[in-house]
């Protein structure tokens, strides 16, 4: 049987070239006088993590979660709130000390986002189809309103994080250093995604997408597998949120807004749902498109909307087909 996640030699070479290009990118950018490319590339990588995590539920599991930005936002706020408590020198809820350590704050973001995903997933997965879409969207909106209401943490103005989290003796203020931190995390995350997708768990997930009833008839507890995937995906989004809070040194309820969930979905679809590297390319494509269009006109959404429509109506799986040989098949 052909294993969709076993890479051919050609694909491995392509991946090596991709990683080499990402390593070389900031130096090339500096050499050609475009230093702003490095922060942009950092943002691209963070979105690639968020989209990759969504792909676990959407592409591999076939669950149309429309509230994924909630976990991204929760992760961001975890970093922001922990930092805030360092600044004011007062423990959270009276007993959790704040932190500015990257190796504590970001894992905390992953865990808190995972806990929210577990809770929301446990409820939302009681349904499927259109109800699932609406419920994930509604719960995300509920968290959005929660953060708008938390005046203590900035309310709808958002929360400014004065310094990036500290990691060993690295100078995290330096965009180049931070880029490499994010790059290493991204590579690690995609390795993990690949391990998950190729594991027995990933196989069951794919089988559930294809025919849930048949999997249930085999005696597999479908609900548990779906919930586990939903939770892991939430943790991935929490990681991306924790990174973006460090990157932008700012979090706001906008991170949880439903349009952000829509954007993440677009990235996954654009790049190719159910392929390993699709979301990475989707994130690159969308953020580049947004950056180009917004540099050209303030009303970039006026163009993004129709582009999206045309892609969905006329170029089904167009981009994903292009990248299929790199992702090694998938769907």
């Amino acid at each position, binding site marked *: 049987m052909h294993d969709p996640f076993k890479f051919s030699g050609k694909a491995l070479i392509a991946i090596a070239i991709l990683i080499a290009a990402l390593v070389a990118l900031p130096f090339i950018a500096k050499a050609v006088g475009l230093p702003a490319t490095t922060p942009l590339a950092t943002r691209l990588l963070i979105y690639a993590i968020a989209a990759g995590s969504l792909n676990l539920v959407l592409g591999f599991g076939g669950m149309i979660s429309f509230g994924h930005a909630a976990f991204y936002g929760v992760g961001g706020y975890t970093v922001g709130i922990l930092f805030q408590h360092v600044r004011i020198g007062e423990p959270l809820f009276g007993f959790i000390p704040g932190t500015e350590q990257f190796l504590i704050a970001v894992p905390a973001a992953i865990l808190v986002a995972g806990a929210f995903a577990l809770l929301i997933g446990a*409820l*939302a997965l009681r349904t499927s189809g259109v109800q699932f879409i609406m419920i994930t969207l509604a719960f995300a909106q509920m968290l959005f309103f929660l953060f708008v*209401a938390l005046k203590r943490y900035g309310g709808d103005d958002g929360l400014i994080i004065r310094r990036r989290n500290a990691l060993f003796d690295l100078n995290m203020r330096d965009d180049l250093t931070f880029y490499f931190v994010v790059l290493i995390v991204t590579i690690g995350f995609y390795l993990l995604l690949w391990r998950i997708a190729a594991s027995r768990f990933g196989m069951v997930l794919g089988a559930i997408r294809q025919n849930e009833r048949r999997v249930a008839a085999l005696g597999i507890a479908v609900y548990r597998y779906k919930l586990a995937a939903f939770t892991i995906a939430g943790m991935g989004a929490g990681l991306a949120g924790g990174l973006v809070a460090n990157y932008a040194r700012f979090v706001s309820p906008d991170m949880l807004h439903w349009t952000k969930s829509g954007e993440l979905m677009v990235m996954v679809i654009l790049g190719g749902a159910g392929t390993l590297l699709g979301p990475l390319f989707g994130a690159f494509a969308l953020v580049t498109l947004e950056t180009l269009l917004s540099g050209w006109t303030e009303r970039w959404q006026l163009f993004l909307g129709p582009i999206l429509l045309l892609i969905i109506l006329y170029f089904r799986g167009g981009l994903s087909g292009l990248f299929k040989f790199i992702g090694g098949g998938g769907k």
Partner: protein
Amino acid sequence: MSLLFVEQVLNGLQLGVMLFLLAAGLTLIFGIMGIINLAHGSLYMVGAYAGSIAASATGSFLLAVPAGLAAAAVTGLAIEYLVIRKLYDRDHLDQVLATYGLVLLFNESISLIVGRQPLFVGVPPALSGSIEILPGMTFSVYRLTIIVAGLVIAAGLYALIQRTRLGMLIRAGATNRDMVRALGVDIKLLYTLVFGLGALLAGFAGVMAGPLLSVQVGMGEQILIMTFVVVVVGGVGSIRGALFGAIVVGLVDTLLRAFLPQLVRGLLADPSEADQLSAGLASMGVYVLMAIVLLWRPQGLFPARS
């Protein structure tokens, strides 16, 4: 206190009726055509803009209503013809993304044409003021009009679907579209009509909302997500569920917003923090309601079919 409570119940009923107008269209379109339409809120927005522009241009609210209805219906039919028609056989994901693209397009187009400043429309003079509906208690005539109009429309919709030949075809189309097609019914036309009807209802809600809210870009999404809650609570595809869900959600939301601040202010020292927190908690209230209903009945209170 009790009179204030009655007033807030009426306000909740008014919100519920507005939500019903949107939820009925949304759930009909999903129940019959199998389409999940995120752009439903955009039709509401188009109705609100067309209505308020017509009202300020002519000074007559009587002209604003047909203008809003016509704009929403024409927009709806155009969307159906150009986009939705191509999505019938696609999965929900494609529908969600395509209609998400439509939302972006509509929001930016409106802000391009009308500007980002919200529009404010006065309550029409004939419906302004308030009447005494209980001894010692007055209520806005305009809101009362919305309640009555909404209930009349609900009754009309029920009659249309349960008592007419068109309604019979709609119900049949929801159950088995291939059979209906095999019987020689033009199912494409039927779908177009259903979509137009949904757009018309959303447009009406938009026009009526004009004098109560500020008419602005993004107003469609705010209410769309509440409409989703209504549809989930009531049961997807069910008109009866949409009516019941809308009224429950409208009441819960309004009563929480009205009475939660007093409760929270008793618990927190800082009044401004208490107000913001209670506003946030009140916004979350309907989602908590939805979670409770889901735990109890995952298919909603009135599932369309078992």
